[in-house]
C-alpha cells in the first residue's frame, strides 16, 4: 500500500488525530473541505484501512400538535385533576372547560382510578404524585431530543397518544482512525508527494475514424506504388456503370433488386455520340439484343468505382497510366453482419504495353504485403468486363480460413475497343471494409457505421 496521501486525506487524518471521533459534518467544519471532498477522503482512507466508519441509527423526537398543546397547558388528565382538586364539578362544566381533550382525560383518569363520578359530578379520588409522560414532555419541549436521553417507560405513554410526538430517524456516521491511521505522520517532509499509483479518470482522444485510417493507408500504398488517384461521382448513368463495361442491359446485376436506381432521374449527357454508338454496337453484336439508350441514361448509384476509371481511360486514352479510384459504392442488399448497402471500394488500373496477368498478380502481392498479409493465393473467377479474371484469397489466422478479397483481370477488348483504348488495361478492385474488418478483428461490418462512441473511443488505432 502506498503511503502517499492526497491533500484531502492529509487534512482528515490531521483533524482525527486530535478529535478522535467525528461526524462527516464536523470534519467538514474542521478541515474546511467540501462535503464531497470529505466523502471521497473517507472512502479512500477506509479502503486503505486507515479509518473506520461507525454507522449508527438514532431516533429523535419533537412534539406534535397535541404534544405542544399539552406542553403549554399541561397534559389533559392533569388539567382535569386540577379542575376538580378542590371541588367536584359538573360533567357539562368540565366538557366546556376542556373541550376536545375531555374524553381522553376522562378515560385515563378513570382507568387509573383517580376520579369518581356521581350524579353528573366528578370527584377526585386520589391525586397521583407523578403523571406518566409529563417528564418526557418537559424534556422535549419545543426542541428535539434523542431517544437515548429519555425515560423509556415514561416516553411510552406519550407514544400511545395521537399527534403527541414526531419521530425522526437519524443515521449518523462517526469517523475515527485505525491504529495504523493514528500512527501516521502526514506532516513529514515526504508528504508533498502524490499517489502516483492511484487510478486517474479516463479521457478520450479525438481521432480519425478507424475505417478512414484503413482507407488512408490503402490510398497511400497505391500512391507509393506509382498510382495516381482520381475521383468521380457516386451517381452515374447506367452507361458508365454497366454498358461501357460490357454488362448487357438484361443482366441480372442491373435489376432493381441488385442496383439502386434513382427515382425518375435520367441523364441526357452520357457520353460522346461515338462512344454511345460503338458501345451499343458491341452489345448488339455480342449479346444479341435490342440495346436501348433510355436504359443507358437511367441514373444509378454506382455499384463499383470501375465506372470512374473506365470513363477516365475513355477520355484520356493514355498509352501508359497507373490510376486508381477510391470511394463509396452501393448495392441493394439486405443489411446484415456481412453486407452493407453502401461501402468503400478501391479500384485501380494499369495501362501499358507490358501489362500482363503476372504483373497484375505482382501488384496485388505487393499491396497485401504492405498491409501485412503474406499468405495469399489466386483463384480464377468471372467478371463480365475482364478476361482473364482472378480473385485473391487471403488466409486469416483468426478465422482459420481463406477469405476472398480483391478481384482482378484484364479489361475485355469488348470493353476497351469501343472506347478507343488500344493498350491492354489491367484492372483490380475490391471492398475496403473487408480489409478493415480483418485489421480490427470485427465480425460485424455494420460496426463501422454505427458511430458507437464506446467503440470509437476505445478501439486501438494502430493494428
Amino acid at each position, binding site marked *: 500500500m502506498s503511503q502517499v496521501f492526497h491533500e484531502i486525506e492529509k487534512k482528515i487524518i490531521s483533524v482525527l488525530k486530535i478529535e478522535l471521533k467525528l461526524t462527516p459534518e464536523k470534519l467538514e467544519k474542521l478541515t474546511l473541505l467540501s462535503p464531497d471532498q470529505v466523502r471521497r477522503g473517507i472512502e479512500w482512507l477506509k479502503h486503505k484501512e486507515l479509518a473506520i466508519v461507525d454507522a449508527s441509527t438514532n431516533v429523535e423526537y419533537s412534539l406534535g400538535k397535541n404534544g405542544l398543546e399539552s406542553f403549554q397547558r399541561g397534559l389533559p388528565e392533569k388539567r382535569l385533576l386540577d379542575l376538580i382538586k378542590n371541588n367536584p364539578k359538573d360533567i357539562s362544566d368540565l366538557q366546556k372547560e376542556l373541550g376536545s381533550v375531555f374524553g381522553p382525560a376522562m378515560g385515563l383518569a378513570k382507568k387509573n382510578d383517580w376520579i369518581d363520578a356521581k350524579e353528573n359530578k366528578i370527584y377526585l379520588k386520589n391525586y397521583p404524585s407523578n403523571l406518566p409522560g409529563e417528564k418526557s414532555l418537559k424534556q422535549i419541549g419545543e426542541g428535539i431530543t434523542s431517544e437515548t436521553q429519555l425515560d423509556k417507560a415514561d416516553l411510552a405513554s406519550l407514544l400511545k397518544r395521537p399527534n403527541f410526538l414526531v419521530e425522526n430517524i437519524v443515521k449518523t456516521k462517526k469517523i475515527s482512525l485505525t491504529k495504523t491511521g493514528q500512527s501516521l505522520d502526514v506532516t513529514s517532509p515526504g508528504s508533498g508527494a502524490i499517489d502516483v499509483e492511484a487510478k486517474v479518470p479516463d479521457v478520450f482522444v479525438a*481521432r480519425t475514424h478507424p475505417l478512414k485510417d484503413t482507407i488512408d493507408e490503402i490510398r497511400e500504398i497505391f500512391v507509393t506504388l506509382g498510382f495516381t488517384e482520381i475521383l468521380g461521382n457516386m451517381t452515374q448513368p447506367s452507361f458508365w456503370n454497366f454498358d461501357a463495361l460490357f454488362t448487357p442491359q438484361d443482366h441480372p446485376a442491373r435489376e432493381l433488386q441488385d442496383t439502386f436506381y434513382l427515382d425518375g432521374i435520367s441523364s441526357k449527357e452520357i457520353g460522346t455520340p461515338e462512344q454511345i454508338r460503338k458501345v451499343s454496337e458491341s452489345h448488339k453484336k455480342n449479346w444479341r439484343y435490342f440495346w436501348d439508350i433510355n436504359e443507358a441514361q437511367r441514373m444509378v448509384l454506382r455499384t463499383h468505382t470501375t465506372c470512374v476509371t473506365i470513363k477516365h481511360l475513355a477520355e484520356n486514352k493514355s498509352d501508359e497510366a497507373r490510376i486508381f479510384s477510391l470511394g463509396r459504392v452501393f448495392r441493394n442488399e439486405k443489411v446484415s453482419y456481412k453486407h452493407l448497402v453502401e461501402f468503400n471500394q478501391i479500384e485501380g488500373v494499369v495501362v501499358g504495353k507490358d501489362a500482363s496477368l503476372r504483373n497484375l498478380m505482382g501488384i496485388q502481392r505487393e499491396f497485401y504485403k504492405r498491409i501485412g498479409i503474406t499468405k495469399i493465393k489466386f483463384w480464377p473467377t468471372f467478371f463480365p468486363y475482364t478476361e482473364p479474371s482472378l480473385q485473391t484469397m487471403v488466409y486469416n489466422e483468426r478465422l482459420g480460413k481463406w477469405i476472398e478479397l480483391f478481384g482482378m483481370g484484364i479489361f475485355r477488348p469488348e470493353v476497351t475497343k469501343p472506347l478507343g483504348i488500344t493498350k491492354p488495361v489491367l484492372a483490380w478492385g475490391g471492398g475496403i471494409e473487408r480489409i478493415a474488418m480483418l485489421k480490427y478483428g470485427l465480425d460485424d461490418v455494420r460496426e463501422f457505421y454505427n458511430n458507437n462512441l464506446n467503440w470509437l473511443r476505445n478501439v486501438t488505432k494502430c493494428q
Partner: protein
Amino acid sequence: MPVVTLSYSRLQKLVGKVSKKQISELLPFLGLDIESEDKNSVRVEYSPNRPDYSTDIGIALGLQGLLGIKTGALKLNVRKSNRFTINVKSGVSKIRPFITGIVATNGKIDQELLEQIIQMQEDLHMGIGRKRKKSSIGIHDLDSCSFPLTYTTTTRIAKFIPLKSTQESSISEILENLDVGREYGHILGNSGQVPILIDSNGNTVSFPPIINAAKTTVTTKTKNLFIEVTGINKEDAEDMLSVVATILQSARFTLEHVKISGAKNSSPKLVQRKISINPTVINQMLGLNLKSSQIISSLKKSRLDASSKGKNIVCTIPAYRFDIFGPMDLVEETALGYGIQNLEPTLSPSQTLGQISPISSQLKSLSQIMIGLGYLEALNSSLTSKRVLYDMTNRNSNKIISVLDSKSQEHTILRDSILPGLLENLSRNIHESYPQKLFETGTIFLKNNIIDEKTNLAAVCAHKEANFSEIKSILQAALKIGFNLEIETRTSSHETFQEGKMASILVHGKTIGMIGEINSNTIENYKIRVPVVGFEINLSGLIFD
C-alpha cells in the same frame, strides 16, 4: 450466383481416378467457389457464364481436363434422323418465335441424375434464359410424344393437364392459379394467343415458357428424352440446347437430330467454332514464355481443341462454350489449363509517379484540424432515411432524391445534408460520457438539372454547457488555420436550429453554411438530455471546386 451441390462419390465415378481431397483442391481452379463442404458432398458457386457447371456432369468434364484424364473438346455426336420433326406455324412469330430441340435415347435416369437435370434446367432458366424471358427448356419423355409435333398458338381457353396435376386446366387458369403461371405469365403479354407445342394426336406437349404437360413427365423409368427450347432468338435458344445436349451425351445418352422448319425456324446445328490466336499475344498477356505445344496442351486441358497453323494456333470451341467471344477468352483458357497456381507474380518497376487527389489531401488536412480541436470523426451512409433526414429535424423535404425498391427501410434517400446523421449518432450515444464532439466530411446530393454532388463538413458538440460561441470558435479556428479564411455570422433562421440562436456563415460575403444551437424539438425527438450546437458548411466552392 447459382450454387450446385455435388456428391463426392458421384463425382469420383464421373471423373475417374481421383481422391476427394484432389477434387476439393481443384474445384476453385475451375472458377468454382466452395460454399460449404462435408464428408460426402460439396456445395459450389459457379459463374452464370458457365451454365455447363450447373451439373456435376459438366464439372466432371472440367476436372478430367485439369487432371489430364481426358483432354480436348467434347464433340457432340448427333445421329442424323428423319424420325423427329417439328413444324412451326407463323402465329408464334410475334409471341415466342423460335423453337429448337434434340432427342436423347437409350439412357438411364436414376434419382440423382434426375435431380441434376432439374437443377440444370432451373439454373439455365434463371441465368442465360433471363428468367425464361429469353429462352426456356422443356424436357419430356420421348415415348409419350407422337411426332411430328407442331409449334403453334392457341387461345387462352384451350385446356390440357399440366405437369404435377391430374386435372385439365385452361391456359387462363394456369396463368392465374399456378405459381409458374403467375411468375412467368407476363412474358406472353396480353395477346389472346399463346404459344403451344402439340403432338400429332393433338395432345399438348408443353405450353412454353410456362409449363409442360403432365403426359410427358420424365421419371426414373424414362429411357428416351425429347428436349425442346423456345425463345425470342434463335442463337440463344440453340446455345441453351447445346448445354443440355452436351450434358446428356456425357450422361451416356445417344443424341438424335430433330428437324425443324417453318416461320423462319431451322434445325439446330450445334456446330463447333474456330478462333485463331497468335501465341505471342497469349504470352504477352500472361507474362509467360510458353511454346506453342505448351499452349495447345493447356487449351486442351481446358476442354478445347487446338492445333498449330503456321505461326498461329487454331482453337476449336464446342457449341456449349458460347461464353468464349474471342482471343482474350483463349488467353484465360490457356491460363486455366496451365494452372493459375503455376503463374508466379512479378512486379515490374513503375514508370509512373503516383499522386493523391488534391481533394483527398485537403480533406485529410481538414480532418487533422478538427481532431486537433477535439472532435472525433464519424462516418454515416450517404443513403439514409426520411426519418433521419427530415422527420426528426423538421427539415423541408420537397427535393428528395430517392432510390427505387430499396431492401432496407433505413436506406432509401440520398442525404442533402450531413448534420442530421450526426444528430442521430448523438441520440444513439446518450449513455456515453459527455462532452461528445463529432465531425464528418462527405458527399451530399442536391437535385438540380440532374444531380449535384458536393462535399460538406459538419460538426456537432453536445454537453451541459454547449453554446453558440463555443461552436463558432471551433469553426472560426478550423477555417483560419486550415485555409486562412475568415468567417462572418449573420442572424438567420432554419428549422434545424433554435430561433435566435443560429446564424448563416459567410466567407467573402458568400453564404457557405449554417451554425447554431440545435432546435429543442429535435433534441427532444432524439431524447438527448444536453444542449447541442453544430454547423455544416459546403467545402465545394470554398476550398476546392
